[in-house]
């Protein structure tokens, strides 16, 4: 187990390293100059050169990259804006805030959105999927399958605005979604996120319904499930002990992927509801050519994805004794 973790984490570090290079190259591929954005009304080549110098953009790209890596690992006191302990992504060009601080700052929004949404869609999605598989072929199953088919074909950029239009703007039943800190006021935290949760989990739940239903049905056709029935085990027992155990593998896999990418910033959801999470931060960093922020968000998101990949693989070992981690 330990060897597995060490190996996988090393692999992840290599991938992150490559990704940071790609992001760097990508950024310098953009023919727009962050200095222009900071230059203000009285902009001329001198002041641009000046800003370049302040930002370190006058150094060669490899040199800048080296500095970036160095700061990331060791931190730096060299920033004009203040000290920057490791992991140091530097200071945002746009807001002059420490990138790492900004990421940590935005994280609770994204985590709230993701966890709340995940709880909803896991319960509803798996519940419906299992029910449909249990009552396979009945009207319940067909309704659930058809409903899941339609809902999973919906997009957040349709369902989200639709929910806003109906629930917020037309009927005024709900507040416009916003992020309020849980610690400050749990009720308003809940009220502010309820619509994003519902929208996010509607689409995801439909997907989990489809997935868990077909995984269960597939498992129920496994020979070992038939053996268990042939031993005289009850349907319920076989369903929940044998088939469910096997269905866990695809479910955990997809759930890991979803959770990883959502925690890295649910871009469209956050954009639609104007939630100040990592996804919105990412969009912002692109629009403002904010390299430190872009690098920060990109690496953070990729870390989430990789982390959950590893977690999923580790989970396999608990679910399936055939899997040996090494």
């Amino acid at each position, binding site marked *: 187990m330990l060897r597995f973790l060490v190996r996988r984490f090393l692999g992840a570090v290599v991938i992150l390293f490559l990704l940071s290079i790609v992001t760097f190259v990508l950024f310098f591929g953009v023919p*727009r100059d962050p200095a222009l954005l900071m230059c203000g009304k009285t902009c001329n080549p001198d002041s641009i050169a000046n800003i370049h110098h302040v930002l370190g953009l006058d150094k060669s790209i490899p040199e800048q990259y080296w500095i970036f890596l160095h700061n990331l690992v060791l931190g730096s006191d060299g920033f004009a804006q203040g000290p920057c302990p490791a992991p140091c992504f530097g200071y945002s060009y746009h807001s002059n805030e420490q990138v790492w601080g900004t990421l940590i700052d935005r994280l609770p929004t994204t985590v709230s959105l993701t966890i709340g949404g995940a709880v909803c869609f896991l319960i509803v999605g798996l519940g419906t999927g299992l029910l449909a598989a249990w009552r396979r072929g009945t009207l319940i199953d067909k309704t659930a399958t058809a409903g899941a088919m339609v809902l999973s074909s919906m997009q957040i950029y349709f369902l989200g605005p639709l929910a806003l239009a109906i629930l917020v703007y037309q009927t005024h039943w709900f507040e416009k979604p916003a992020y309020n800190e849980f610690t400050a006021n749990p009720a308003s935290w809940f009220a502010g996120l309820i619509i994003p949760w519902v929208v996010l989990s509607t689409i995801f739940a439909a997907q989990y319904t489809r997935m868990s239903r077909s995984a269960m049905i597939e498992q129920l056709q496994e020979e070992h*499930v038939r053996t268990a029935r042939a031993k005289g085990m009850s349907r319920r027992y076989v369903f929940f002990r044998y088939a469910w155990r096997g269905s866990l593998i695809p479910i955990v896999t997809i759930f890991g992927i979803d959770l990883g990418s959502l925690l890295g910033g649910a871009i469209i959801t956050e954009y639609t509801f104007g939630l100040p999470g990592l996804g919105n931060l990412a*969009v912002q960093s692109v629009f403002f050519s904010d390299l430190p922020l872009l690098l920060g968000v990109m690496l953070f998101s990729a870390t989430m994805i990789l982390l959950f990949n590893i977690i999923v693989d580790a989970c396999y070992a608990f679910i399936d004794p055939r899997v040996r981690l090494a």
Partner: protein
Amino acid sequence: MVVDGEPGPKTKTEDVKLEGRSPGQLMWIRFKRDRTGVISAYVVGFFFLIGLCAPLISKLYGKDPYTVFADERPELFDSAGVPVQPNGGISGDFWFGLEPGNGYDVFTKLIYGIRTSLMISIAVTIAVVVTGILLGVAAGYLGGRTDFFIGRVIDFLLAFPAQLFFIASMPVVVSLFVSPRDETPTYVRVVALILVQWFLGWMSLARILRGTSLALREREFIEAAKVSGASSWRIIRKEILPNVVTPLLVQATYMLPAFVTAEAGLSYLGVGIVEPTPDWGQMFAKASTELVLRNDITYMFFPGISMIIFIVAFNLLGDSVRDAFDPKAAR
């Protein structure tokens, strides 16, 4: 009762009955029997037809998606550009109403938007399929270092935060084609959208094809071909490719709608196709503006419902294609 697989003898008997037919014919016969699949195919075909015939339809209808009716027919709008008539200005003249803002005709905008989105998605699908075949089959068939290398590339690309990467790279790709001083022609944005989605779109297909060709490599007929001295290229072309058609076609039917929604998502975020070029996703972007949310909820249903119908039909079609190829698959 739990043990409810398709009974064993069934496929056997079917094979017997259809003895002598090619797998393609078999698939076609099975598919034709699947009424849901056939209806879905018609629906999907209808969308493609609309996309294809959009110019003709708009000619017959007498309007185009570029006319600014807010200035042409100012009496139909208030000063913020919202149609004054109820239901988004639906009337005999404007079947689907008028778009809040500049007052484009929603009907023609929608059919042209479908045209744009489908065109892009088909191109991405083709690009992804070609790449998937090339790299997947190469990895699976050649094995060894090639396989290892392609495998690592796939691992790497899968770790990309895809959406974030799309957003970050769209301006870069666009700028590769035009100097920032010139107008970005629509085709450049289209090409950029295709490239960006292709770049992070081929891995799953390549993995599947790798698996398939890896399995095929061990099969007798490939061994036989090898022993008889056929070149690798010939084996790939004559023996492997025909055998990966099934997973390929099934995957492609699932991929295309995914690309449609992804493309629309990018335009929704403002990095894809922009006004005035009609595009499905761009209509969603418009539909999510405060103006529409507050004043003209009708508008958002045209892109919304049409896309749901399209995606549902395409997914049902995908299921049917899969079932037709592989009737044992669990449903």
